[in-house]
């Protein structure tokens, strides 16, 4: 099992290294990444939006919809963390099977088949 795994890793690594040889050089002006829409940005970013930093012009003007989507992802991550970690306290003794956060609270060890790793020591915020 183990020699087969090592052989597989070596084979896949060799395959990718061999495939890397076909890529264009870094900073090659004839490369596909530098011939299509990037030329338009380089030539027109200053005239279009008076912005000297081309990266800011691309991120916040030409590709602003993408940036907006990333920002919404950040907010969704914060909301998800709060929804998972902060629960109401009144359902402490009622086993709630819809709760994703089961097994993380202080009552995790008491659940019949649920939590496997109760937190050792006092939970943060319990004292002070």
């Amino acid at each position, binding site marked *: 099992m183990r020699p087969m795994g090592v052989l597989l890793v070596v084979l896949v690594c060799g395959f990718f290294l061999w495939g890397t040889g076909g890529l264009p050089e870094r900073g090659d002006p004839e490369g596909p990444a530098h011939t299509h829409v990037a030329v338009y940005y380089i030539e027109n970013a200053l005239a279009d939006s008076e912005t000297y930093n081309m990266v800011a012009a691309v991120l916040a003007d030409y590709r602003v919809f993408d940036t907006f989507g990333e920002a919404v992802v*950040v907010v969704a991550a914060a909301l998800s*963390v709060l929804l998972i970690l902060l629960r109401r306290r009144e359902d402490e003794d009622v086993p709630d099977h819809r709760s994703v956060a089961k097994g993380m609270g202080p009552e995790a060890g008491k659940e019949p088949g649920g939590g496997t790793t109760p937190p050792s020591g006092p939970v943060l915020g319990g004292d002070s």
Partner: protein
Amino acid sequence: MTSRYDSLFLDVVSRAIVPLIQIFALYVVTHGHYDPGGGFQGGVMLAASTILLRISQGEESYRRFSPSAGLYLAGFATLGIALWGFSSMLFGGTFLEHGYAIPGIDGVTLRYWGIFVVEVLIGFLVWGSLVAIYDGLTTGGMDE
């Protein structure tokens, strides 16, 4: 909530260094037109300064910047970007096309200020979101 450490050095150094971090972060947010940087990086620095205050000052930091304030900041900043985008839809452009956002102003100037608005709002959004994630992690499993 984390409690405060009884260390004079930690107290003094964190009080002295947080304003410097925040001024540099505001510089990074607002100077995205000319230098590397922008809303995301500056927002992360603002969040780092707030988390430093949370760690070193304890309860007082929660009174100044309450745990729900981060989420309010993030939500209202998202709403602001969306409203800015819809205003340019209203006046003839597509969503978030800065050149049409306010009628009567030159398109190039408007795109300059549109970049500024988006960067600043994204800075606030990232600040609020990361502080909210930190508060959720430190008060994990308990409410408030």
